[in-house]
């Protein structure tokens, strides 16, 4: 029986598995640090571009301009106090001048009162 099996095994070995198709070349894989660096650069660039385009599209806001104007005239408490003690008349003049920039205008064709009256 064993000899019988061996004969048959030898018969089976007359058949050879065919050679499979050639092994393809593996795609070059970049090292992990390089992949991370590329991802970080891509994110930074896309963030920069979207912020830039956002900034380009938005119109300049009037309230921001007004705030800037206000900030341009600093009213510091200490010099004002000193001025009040030394020369009250000049203090009045300084406050009047400052109020033109800080408070809404009540005179002239562009005044706030005129605008409200029109409404």
């Amino acid at each position, binding site marked *: 029986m064993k000899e019988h099996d061996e004969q048959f*095994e030898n018969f*089976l070995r007359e*058949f*050879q*598995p065919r*050679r*499979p198709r050639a*092994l393809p070349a593996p795609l070059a894989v970049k090292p992990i640090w390089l992949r991370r660096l590329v991802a970080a650069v891509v994110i930074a660039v896309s963030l920069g571009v979207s912020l830039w385009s956002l900034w380009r599209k938005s119109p300049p806001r009037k309230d921001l301009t007004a705030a800037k104007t206000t900030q341009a005239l600093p009213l510091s408490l200490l010099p004002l106090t000193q001025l009040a003690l030394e020369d009250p008349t000049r203090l009045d003049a300084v406050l009047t001048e400052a109020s033109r920039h800080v408070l809404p205008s009540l005179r002239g064709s562009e005044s706030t009162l005129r605008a409200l009256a029109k409404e």
Partner: protein
Amino acid sequence: MPERRLSADEVRRLYDQHGPALVAFACSIVADTATAEDVVHQIFLRLLRGDTLIPELPVAYLYRAVRNAALNSRRKGNRSVSFEDQPVAAKSLFQHDDGNREAALALQAALLELPDEQREVVVLRIWSGMTLEEAADLSGVSLNTAASRYRYALEKLRERLKPYRKS
């Protein structure tokens, strides 16, 4: 056992040496030559990329890896082309020493008729040159189970291939 990364030359040499038997082995699980080749390529490409460390004696590792990948592929139902639906060129997994193409196709058909576990042990024993102990170890069964599977498989193959044997 120490493990190491293989060089591209070593991987290609292993593929030349064991590729045909590994594809035959994978084919005993997925029953489709093209899928079997894909499965074997997948394992060797992983080795070429250096993703995997393998033992000093890589043959057992290769068979185990191919077995797992083929079982996964079968579970996912990848390209389950039936033997009858395959073109003739794809069908002929074997070639006969004397060029008997009909006998080669008959062998393949007879193998496909065997239950999976019997086909596996026959391929491992005949074309991969493993002992029954090694085949049993790889399939995760006892030596007795592997031996009886092998015996039943040989009986069926002998019957099916009788017309092609020289008396």
